[in-house]
């Protein structure tokens, strides 16, 4: 295990699930910086439908942690205005599937404010939103729209895969002066998911990523994490898929190098390049639909930079180009079989 994470300042660690880690990130930063405000549908008194903001209103008061009207364009537009005043808003969009009404405020406004105002105004927002499937949520509680945001210039996109990463990355995102989309893989809120939906669910209590410092620490944006070193093939993944890849690798005994990207924009191209040049093979795994997904960008980059080191075509393993189905969820999900088959193919080529 290589780890690019610097030592935490306060190293008293506790077992946390990802929701608790995210909650702790907001708690720790709010205590340090009075400019931080948390807002969104049901995030106040109730503490969010996934309980990620539980207890924060009680601790920091209603003007720093508040419920909002149900209008996503309103939430983001208001956050942009608060940012213009000098606050540091952390809006929640209840599900990534409901972020579309906010697209204009995100794409045309938040993402371009610094550029178009000559730096007079910035949008230091961190938009938190649960994303991804595997919970029988049907097409409006399962989507992975990260590729829509990585396509937009001026916004950063971050996706954690463990409670430890979630806290460190979220603190870094909140402190970042540019808008950040922070997608939380809800399938792994309560425990790592290895892709075997028919096996008992695990929780974070035994996973190394479930040990989380209680205090302040950051994981820099733009730094990938090599979660498993290997020689045979590079697997690029993020969020839930990191764990599914790890299980396939454990089951097949393939000596794969698994790179957890953690931040899609800005991307840690050096880590990717070094890994692919070493292994000569690159497989990209994401749950989002395939066409114009972030995997397409990764494939292009690897091809541009590592072409003469490649011993096989770059392979993408993704969700299918259909809406996320309800009952056939597990036929849609890029699980162990799909990844295993792709692994076989790329090693043969």
């Amino acid at each position: 295990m290589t780890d690019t994470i610097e030592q935490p300042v306060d190293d008293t660690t506790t077992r946390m699930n990802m929701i608790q880690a995210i909650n702790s990130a907001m708690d720790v930063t709010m205590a340090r910086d009075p400019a931080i405000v948390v807002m969104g549908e049901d995030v106040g008194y109730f503490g969010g439908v996934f309980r990620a903001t539980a207890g924060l209103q009680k601790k920091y008061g209603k003007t720093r942690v508040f419920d909002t009207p149900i209008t996503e364009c309103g939430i983001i537009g208001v956050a942009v205005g608060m940012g213009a005043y000098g606050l540091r808003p952390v809006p929640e969009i209840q599900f990534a599937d409901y972020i579309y009404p906010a697209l204009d405020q995100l794409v045309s406004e938040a993402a371009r404010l610094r550029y178009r105002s000559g730096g007079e105004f910035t949008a230091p927002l961190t938009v938190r939103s649960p994303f991804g499937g595997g919970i029988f949520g049907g097409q409006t509680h399962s989507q992975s729209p990260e590729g829509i945001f990585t396509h937009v210039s001026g916004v950063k996109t971050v996706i954690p895969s463990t409670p430890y990463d979630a806290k460190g990355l979220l603190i870094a995102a909140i402190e970042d002066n540019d808008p950040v989309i922070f997608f939380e893989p809800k399938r792994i809120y309560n425990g790592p998911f290895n892709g075997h939906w028919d096996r008992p669910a695990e929780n974070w209590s035994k996973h190394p990523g479930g040990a989380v410092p209680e205090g302040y620490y950051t994981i820099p944006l733009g730094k990938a994490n090599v979660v498993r070193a290997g020689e045979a093939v590079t697997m690029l993944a993020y969020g839930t898929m990191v764990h599914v890849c790890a299980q396939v690798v454990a089951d097949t005994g393939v000596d794969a190098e698994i790179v957890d990207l953690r931040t899609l924009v800005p991307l840690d191209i050096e880590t990717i390049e070094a890994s692919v040049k070493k292994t000569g093979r690159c497989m990209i795994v994401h749950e989002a639909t395939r066409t114009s997904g972030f995997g397409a960008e990764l494939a292009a980059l690897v091809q541009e930079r590592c072409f003469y080191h490649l011993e096989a075509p770059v392979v993408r393993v993704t969700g299918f180009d259909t809406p996320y189905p309800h009952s056939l969820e597990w036929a849609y999900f890029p699980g162990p079989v799909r990844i295993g088959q792709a692994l076989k193919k790329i090693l043969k080529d």
Partner: protein
Amino acid sequence: MPEESDVVDALSNLKPLSLHVPEPKFRPGDAVDFADVEVPAAGSVRRPDTLAPAQDFTDLAYTMVRVLDEDGQAVGPWNPQLSPDRLRRMLRDMAMVRAFDERMFRAQRQGKTSFYMKSLGEEAVAIAAAHALDDEDMCFPSYRQQGLLIARGCPLVDMMNQIYSNTGDKLQGKQLPIMYSEKRFGFFSISGNLTTQYPQAVGWAMASASKGDTRIAATWCGEGSTAEGDFHSALTFATVYRAPVIFNVVNNQWAISSFSGFAGAEATTFAARAIGYGIAGLRVDGNDALAVYAATAWAAERARTNAGPTLIEHFTYRAEGHSTSDDPTQYRSAGEPTAWPLGDPIRRLKDHLIALGEWDEDRQAAMDREVAEAVKTAQKEAEKNGILGHGLHQPLDTLFDGVFEEMPWHLREQRQQMIDEETASGRPWARK
């Protein structure tokens, strides 16, 4: 923060601003008293001519149309004078919705499906509207108007098949439970994304008008959903083109954990949203089936005579959790549902029928048994087609149907890949 305000005072001599954040009256543990909910006497609100321009009755957006009084009598100008037979059918439809909800909620708890949403306490809103509209009128509902389907005679088995995502589900398990689509019953495909149906209803109504049709459209959303931009786009289009559409805002006081104050209810009513747009606005007692019927019929007559759109706020109460995923004891007082001043819509219509001498407790009990039995029978029938669960899925190859009319090459390739995966998994699933 005294130091900060001192600074402000010294600089400008102005008082510091403060931010208002709404707070509901009651939280868990609080005793509930709804004395400040203004409930005008039944029959006390005037009923203007349907052809009158919207600005002539702005007062109707701030009061409450009520027909059923405390003694079960139907009174005042809004009394729709319905036949006892119609009243009994409305009563039975409401009871059916309640029995259906009860059973399907339990099915979710038993692990037979992933999700369910009840409409307990709000049954009159959908049922009375369906009775007042023509069956040919087009409905663009939210997820809480299952009553429209039941009133229009959609077979319960079909609804359950959808809830179970089973082999009898004509949506092929593609949608979350209760996100029905029933074109044959004038019921638009339900979206999980709030208020998208509002402008769509206006578009349908504009199309109907432009084609010289006679059918109108009706749409529903919750009070929380009125905050979405689509709500306001819809009202703008509707007023500009005088679209033959009825906007229903179901104000059940709560949007998941957020009380109506987060949609603006501290400052005004939802019916009053209509005024700024020049649209007719009515506020009705949503637990009074006759008031809902009368308001809908009035709005329908306006729409059918090209007099323009109407927005109806149905003042009601969400008596249970938002959905099977919700626990309302976390954020509101458990005393609210029973203290709600407008009562139970089923009991109120029942009392009215009894007062008319057209009904009695025995018949009510027999009807309750009969609807419960009908729901149970339908459930048994539906479960023959399977329940949601691993191993009883839709035929695998249906996953790719319906993305496009014709399947492009990349989807054909992906479908083959999926079938190869299934073969490799050694656990073949059901096929078409």
